[in-house]
């Protein structure tokens, strides 16, 4: 999933809008500039300038004359004010009465345009060659035939008209010398350029903003990946922590078992050993006779056997755990296996008489008869150890009881050898731990190895153990695997 930079760091659309506005304004003003320049390129005459000068000049002359200045001085004053070639006063008949150039005085206005202006009383101007040499302030400046621009503003109510002389070449050269671009055009162009610069600045700013946005997006992506990596590490660390806790719990459990084993050894071995030593010392020191002597010797034999049994079991467990069971499976008829189990019990536990009933059918099983005998003996001994008075062995092709617990995986198909007793049963809360090493019920007098050893033997044969228990007795059922192809196994 793509990661986006945090809100507020993303480039705003306002920048785009602003840049677009500036671009549009720049283009609009540029178009206006072109249009204005096109319009301004049209010929512009001097008419307005002449009229404006003539009115200002007339006002100045009138003011000067009214102030008592001589007309000759008034026209010079006005010429200097207007900065033109010459100024003259003309009467209603067209005669020049005063002029900045003396030779003009007394002359006549003869241009049809100017005469028409005089007649109509309206302003008029014309470019025309002069018919005589002219001077300015006594200095010859113009020769006959030179072209001058003459502008005439008729006087009102019989007053003198004002005649202005312009250097037409200077006027036209001034216009032609200009850039040909009016100030307004330049101003418009400047505004268009400013808008364009503003748009460019906005776009550059936006470009920087986008660059920064991309950088922040990359940083966010990097941080997201780092976060994911840390999460993976956290999971791994959590798993490692759990494994360590499990290992610690296992180690603690082993320590507990080892401590209990030491306690058990201390109790189970030292107690009969102490009894043996005490009995032997009593025989040596007191030298009893008769019934007492027999009773002490009987106790010595009992405790000695108990010690022997304990040591035998410990050695058997150690041997199995270190080297495994010596297991030689053979195809055996089920009836023969049941006979072997019954014979073993009739020999070892002769004071009790377990029953063995062969099944109606006689399938072939794959087992080791010696291990099977040891297993059934172990389970029968365990029953007698825990208070059973009668133990019965029953062989069947069908499972008898619905078990409370199954140790291992029941083979399929299987046959069943059940060892049932009439003991007090196994407490339900202890049942799940009954087949663990050194586990024994608090009221048990066993070593905690009998059922553990039974489990090891069952696992070695590919068999499983099914346990059903109640206050009236317990049934351990050995589920033995059947041999699948009887003809190829050479049944014994």
């Amino acid at each position, binding site marked *: 999933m793509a990661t986006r930079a945090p809100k507020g760091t993303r480039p705003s659309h306002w920048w785009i809008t602003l840049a677009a506005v500036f671009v549009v304004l720049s283009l609009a003003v540029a178009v206006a500039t072109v249009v204005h320049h096109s319009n301004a390129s049209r*010929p512009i*005459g001097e*008419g307005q300038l002449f009229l404006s000068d003539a009115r200002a000049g007339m006002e100045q002359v009138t003011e000067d004359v009214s102030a008592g200045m001589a007309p000759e001085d008034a026209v010079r004053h006005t010429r200097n004010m207007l900065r033109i070639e010459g100024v003259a006063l003309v009467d209603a008949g067209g005669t020049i009465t005063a002029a900045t150039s003396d030779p003009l005085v007394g002359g006549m206005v003869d241009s049809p*345009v100017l005469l028409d202006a005089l007649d109509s009383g309206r302003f*008029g*101007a014309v470019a*025309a060659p002069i018919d005589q040499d002219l001077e300015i302030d006594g200095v010859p400046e113009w020769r006959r035939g030179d*072209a001058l*621009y003459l502008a005439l503003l008729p006087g009102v109510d019989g007053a003198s008209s004002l005649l202005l002389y312009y250097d037409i070449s200077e006027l036209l050269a001034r216009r032609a010398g200009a850039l040909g671009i009016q100030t307004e055009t330049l101003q418009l162009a400047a505004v268009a350029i400013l808008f364009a610069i503003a748009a460019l600045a906005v776009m550059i700013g936006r470009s920087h903003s986008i660059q920064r946005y991309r950088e922040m997006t990359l940083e966010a992506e990097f941080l997201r990946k780092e976060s994911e990596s840390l999460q993976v590490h956290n999971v791994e660390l959590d798993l490692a922590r759990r494994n360590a806790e499990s290992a610690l719990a296992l180690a603690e459990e082993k320590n507990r078992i080892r401590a209990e084993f030491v306690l058990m050894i201390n109790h189970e071995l030292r107690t009969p050993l102490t009894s043996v030593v005490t009995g032997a010392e009593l025989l040596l020191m007191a030298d009893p006779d008769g019934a007492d002597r027999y009773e002490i010797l009987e106790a010595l034999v009992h405790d000695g056997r108990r010690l022997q049994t304990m040591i035998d079991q410990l050695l058997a467990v150690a041997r199995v755990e270190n080297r495994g069971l010596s297991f030689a499976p053979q195809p055996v008829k089920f009836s023969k296996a049941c006979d072997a189990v019954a014979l073993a019990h009739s020999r070892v536990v002769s004071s009790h008489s377990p029953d063995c009933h062969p099944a109606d059918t006689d399938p072939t099983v794959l087992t080791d008869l010696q291990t099977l005998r040891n297993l059934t003996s172990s389970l029968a001994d365990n029953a007698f150890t825990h208070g059973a008075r009668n133990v019965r062995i029953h062989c069947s092709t069908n499972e008898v009881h619905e078990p409370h617990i199954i140790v291992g995986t029941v083979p399929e198909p299987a046959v069943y050898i059940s060892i049932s007793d009439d003991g007090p049963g196994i407490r339900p809360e202890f049942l799940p731990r009954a087949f663990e090493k050194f586990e024994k019920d608090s009221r048990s007098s066993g070593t905690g190895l009998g059922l553990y050893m039974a489990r090891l033997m069952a696992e070695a044969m590919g068999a499983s153990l099914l346990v059903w228990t109640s206050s009236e007795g317990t049934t351990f059922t050995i589920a033995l695997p059947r041999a699948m192809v009887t003809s190829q196994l050479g049944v014994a």
Partner: protein
Amino acid sequence: MRKLIILMAILAVSACQEPAATSADIEIYEFGIEPSVTSFEAGTVTLNVENTGEYGHTLVITDTGGHVLSAGSVIAPGETSQVSVDLAEGEYSFTCRIVSQDGGGNVIDHYEQGMLAEVVVGAG
């Protein structure tokens, strides 16, 4: 054959160009100036100016720097005037430089109104 083709090409190009002149007829009116040709040979150029308008007009000839080479008198309506002027190689403007005021007081500058013609003078 090849030379003939080149000659025909030169003739064809030449036929497309306006021939340079030393004289021209110019019609002036309200408000325009229309010379019969716009390309002249350098040297003395003779212009026959006819005012076909209803008011008087002038013909002022200036170069690109604004210098006046010729400024004739007012030509009355219906009259013809002949102007001779020496023109060097370059560009020139033919204008009317009359400013008047109508009955409403509006300034009418003939040049502004369009009495302008541009001509070119080439090497002789």
